[in-house]
């Protein structure tokens, strides 16, 4: 779960990380009010994508009236597909230098890793490796200063900023651990006069740990359809093609999309119906696919824990209750295959055994659909 900047800053502020004063606003009038209180401000679109500045999602204002105008410009704006519903009005910083610092998970070392650079303010992918300092955080680390000193020294920080940077870094690691983060990133971490202060903040929470953090505000991600399918408890990603796809298991679902693409088709979605899905969730998943109004639906099942007869029953249930008005291609093998295939055959649906053949047929059907 990604947190909006203003929520991330709230968590950081609570943890003792210096951040500018700021208020989240939903109307131009609120923005003017906030600016009257704060002084010269930055007005920042609150969206869950990076690169807001370049896309025109950040403005500056020295007066309340200018803040009102900037808010009017930014609110309602479309930023990389996200509509801006809130702006964060925050004290403007006189920036002397911009640093970068983050804490994330190193999947290989299976430890947290700190990354820092004296060249902040740009996307970290664009920073040359030689300007990046990386240090692992041992799981037993409990505030020992060596780590903080090494990172500060590594990016060439001196007094009076080094001590502040070290204090901030310790707090960021603390936030990561206390909030079950998967990313804490300050970019830029700004040097202004004698002070070090977080000008931007990203805080992503581990989806698997969100439930144990009732204190965090919930942020909804994804399209409306994606949210609805996730509510059912299925993994779903919207794509831009015309072939609706369902498979069981994440790897199978990915391989199914790849097979569609292999034969020149365009998948409309990723849907993992689960490695051991039974009739009910499978029917719900299929129901979603039908609702997408694709040109063709492809169901690719390798029954392991999933039983082929359950999948067949789910298909028949959906067909009887709401109807399946588009061509349906089913590939069904594995556990209880004979029963599943027989159930479908009795209903006039011929299931495929071979994944390649079924994927090729699906793509052919989608082309026919285009010609219709």
């Amino acid at each position: 779960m990604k947190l909006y900047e203003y929520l991330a800053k709230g968590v950081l502020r609570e943890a003792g990380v210096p951040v500018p004063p700021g208020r989240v606003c939903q109307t131009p009038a609120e923005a003017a009010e906030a600016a009257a209180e704060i002084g010269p401000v930055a007005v920042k679109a609150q969206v869950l994508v990076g690169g807001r500045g370049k896309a025109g999602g950040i403005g500056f204002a020295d007066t309340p009236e200018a803040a009102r105008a900037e808010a009017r410009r930014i609110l309602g704006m479309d930023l990389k597909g996200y509509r801006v519903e809130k702006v964060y009005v925050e004290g403007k910083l006189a920036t002397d230098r911009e640093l970068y610092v983050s804490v994330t998970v190193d999947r290989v070392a299976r430890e947290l890793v700190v990354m820092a650079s004296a060249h902040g303010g740009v996307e970290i992918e664009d920073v040359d490796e030689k300007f990046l300092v990386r240090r692992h955080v041992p799981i037993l680390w409990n505030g020992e200063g060596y780590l903080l000193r090494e990172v500060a020294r590594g990016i060439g920080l001196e007094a009076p900023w080094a001590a502040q940077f070290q204090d901030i870094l310790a707090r960021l690691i603390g936030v990561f651990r206390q909030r079950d983060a998967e990313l804490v990133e300050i970019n830029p971490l700004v040097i202004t006069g004698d002070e070090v202060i977080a000008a931007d903040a990203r805080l992503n929470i581990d989806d698997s740990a969100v439930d144990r953090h009732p204190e965090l505000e919930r942020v909804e991600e994804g399209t409306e359809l994606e949210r609805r399918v996730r509510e059912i408890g299925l993994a779903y990603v919207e794509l831009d093609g015309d072939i609706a796809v369902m498979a069981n298991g994440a790897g199978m679902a990915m391989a199914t999309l790849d097979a569609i693409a292999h034969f020149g088709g365009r998948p409309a979605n990723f849907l993992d119906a689960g490695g051991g899905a039974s009739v009910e969730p499978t029917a719900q998943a299929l129901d979603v696919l039908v609702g997408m109004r694709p040109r063709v639906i492809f169901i690719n099942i390798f029954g392991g824990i999933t039983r082929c007869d359950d999948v067949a029953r789910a298909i028949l249930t959906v067909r009887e209750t709401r109807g399946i008005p588009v061509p349906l291609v089913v590939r069904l093998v594995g556990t209880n295959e004979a029963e599943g295939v027989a159930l479908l055959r009795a209903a006039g649906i011929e299931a495929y055994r071979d994944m390649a053949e079924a994927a090729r047929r699906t793509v052919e059907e989608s082309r026919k659909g285009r010609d219709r």
Partner: protein
Amino acid sequence: MSVLLHRDTRVVVQGITGHQGSFHAQQMIAYGTRVVAGVSPSKAGTTHLSVPVYASVREAVERDGAEAAIVFVPAAMARDAAFEAVAAGVRLLVMIPEHLPVLDTMAIHTFCRLRGVTLVGPNTFGLITPGESKLGIMPSHIYRPGPVGIIARSGTLSYEIAASLSDAGLGQSSVVGMGGDPVVGQTFTDLLPLMEADPQTEAVVLVGEIGGSAEERAAELVRTMTKPVVAYLAGKSAPEGKRMGHAGAIIERGRGTLESKRAALEAAGARVCEMPWEISAAVRSALG
């Protein structure tokens, strides 16, 4: 021969009286796995599936010599269950649950490393030594004993591939699920040397996917292996920044792409197949 799991491995099932635990314990016993005990604090003192149910893993280790534990408890309780098994002295720990917080997995992994315990998972289908023993949730009937080792990040996709190998007359020596999470215990890098050393294994199939760098790391080892390696990588059509079902299957900021993995494995001499159905022919030709 095989890696990690043999017909004599003595297994304790944590969560044996639960819905999932009970079903899969029964399947494992039917396959020949030597399940010696189960753990379920609320049902301690009873017998389930003809094995004793205890309140703790320690009893299973002390009374029945359990040396491997498989965990079927909800994610929220999984860290506790894992720590209990490691503290009790098992040497192999298989974590089936999905949705473990990454910090929990890191802690479990660290404790395992401290005690010399082999961790498989979490979010794994487990591991199987066909014809001998299985410790997981995979469908037993698709496997045959034979010369091919399989290491996979995904369950059903590996079933698809194992079944196609079996259909082609290519049995398996050992099949191990790494798990679909960003942080897992055993990875390709840990398992490839075991496959290389195992006399029964003549070729290895890697089933990888987008996200992380496990495949790139594996490539470094593939270079040094004498046995042929065939790979299939899933997620060619996956968009950046989206989690494709597995918590670990995500391209983040240009890293973890399929192209990077394919290039690394091919440069190391592995045969990377475009589609899963090409695997068995590639293995057949690699075996000569």
